[in-house]
């Protein structure tokens, strides 16, 4: 279905101070794909993600969601389809309680109050946070905040889920819970992360960004075995693919 396709065509973004953050990025992501965007710090991952929901406008080139170009006039529709989860959950949880935060999106869309309740319950159920409904955000742990942040976006029933460093700052248990949740989602997923092992588990396709350009775009197995490419982009193999640190046996 065309409205689930995410497409970038020669996307270029130059910041006000002259920094070229994105330099001719092109890709096409189809419905249900799970794509990991990896790269060194400063490679342009966050900038790219911010183009996908129209927060930044392109200096040159374009982004299309479905067949709708991401421009000022279409932002409302775009943001209905594309749900974005930020790196710092505190930036995303700004209402007095979890329930209010998760209901914020649906209410802004004009959904009637009774249906909002249903959306909220469903979203919290999906992330396993139904019991946190009436808590204020400051009483949530890091992992709980992350899950609730995802719920705030899920309640708008987006078709595409964009996530910036979802596992950063989580303890192993919370991280494992989050990975399980992500694997269950049927949405199109676009995940930017340094957590290469999570990307390996969750994503079926990898895009490597370096200095604002796409260096590679393909299957994880193929890309993660290319040590030269990884080194050039200041990356390395996921730990689960590296040899055993104790007996040096290869993975």
């Amino acid at each position, binding site marked *: 279905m065309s409205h689930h396709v995410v497409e970038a065509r020669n996307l270029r973004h130059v910041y006000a101070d002259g920094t070229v953050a994105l330099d001719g990025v092109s890709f096409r992501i189809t419905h249900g794909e799970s794509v990991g965007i990896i790269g060194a710090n400063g490679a342009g991952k966050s900038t790219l993600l*911010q183009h996908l*929901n129209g*927060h930044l406008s392109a200096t040159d080139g374009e982004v299309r969601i479905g067949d709708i170009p991401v421009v000022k006039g279409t*932002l*409302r529709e775009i*943001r*209905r389809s594309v*749900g*974005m989860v*930020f790196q*710092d959950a*505190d*930036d*995303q*949880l*700004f*209402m*007095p*309680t979890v329930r209010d935060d998760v209901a*914020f*999106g649906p*209410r*802004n*869309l004009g959904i009637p109050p009774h249906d909002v309740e249903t959306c909220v319950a469903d979203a919290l159920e999906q992330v396993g946070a139904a019991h946190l409904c009436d808590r*204020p*955000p*400051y009483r949530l742990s890091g992992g709980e905040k992350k899950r609730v942040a995802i719920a*705030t*976006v899920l309640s*708008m029933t987006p078709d595409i889920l964009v996530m910036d460093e979802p596992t950063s700052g989580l303890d192993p248990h919370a991280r494992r819970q989050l990975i399980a949740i992500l694997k269950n989602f049927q949405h199109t997923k676009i995940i930017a992360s340094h957590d290469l092992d999570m990307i390996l588990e969750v994503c079926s396709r990898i895009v490597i960004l370096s200095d604002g350009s796409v260096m590679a775009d393909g299957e994880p197995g193929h890309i993660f075995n290319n040590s030269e490419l990884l080194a050039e982009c200041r990356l390395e193999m996921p730990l689960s693919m590296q040899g055993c640190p104790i007996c040096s046996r290869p993975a």
Partner: protein
Amino acid sequence: MPSIAAAVLEIKQLDELARCDSPIHRLDARAKVLVAIIFCGTVMSFGTHDLSALLPFFIFPAVMIARSNLPPLFILKKMAFLCPFVFIVALFNPALDRTIVVHLGSVGISGGWMSFFSIVVRFFLTAGTALVLVGVTGFVAICQALEQMGVPQVFAAQLLFLYRYIFVLAEEGKRMSSARELRAYGSAGLGIASFSPMIGYLLLRTWSRAERIHMAMRARGFDGAFQAPATSHFGKAEMMHLIGWTMLFAFMRAENMSRLLGTLILGSLS
């Protein structure tokens, strides 16, 4: 830094208390806010030297604390930090006003001391009521009640945002402050020269955070106006709470209950 941590802890403790359950907690926030306002107004309306007439008013915080299961010692401990300004300004009264107005046996009590104690009692009554109000209602519910009662939405939203981010900012401020203190080696290192850049940096991070929050809000369809506030039910229990207490306050304002009781007791004794 103890004071940031202590301040946030106090806020959290009161917030925690507001989540408890009791007949008072279940009342609609509007009723509780209104009664608290009427109480403070009545207490304030007393004359400078009124002391005995004020004492019966302690029945209000006493009953509220008791019926809501708030820990009384906790409230009293908070009140123990009597606002220094009030204390010092009030102390001028006994110094300046030495007209004896009352004799207790052979001891003469001046008008100045009467007004000093009046000020102290008034402080405990009004500030204590504020604490009890937060303890049985919760800051969030108070803000929502205020909005329902006519406070502009922009201001009510501001209060809620402020409250939400105090915890986040206090955490950041505490970390930066600790880092600074650990490298201070005596008070010389804690001067303006180290304070300003630190606060400046905190300000920059705060500004960036605001930009990210704005991004998050817009990403979820926000267009400048918050949707209608939560509706709540103002029923019979609330009416009774409001009317009952208001009538009692009016009565206690009109009649000096202490004097009545005292005259009664003394009369029956003689």
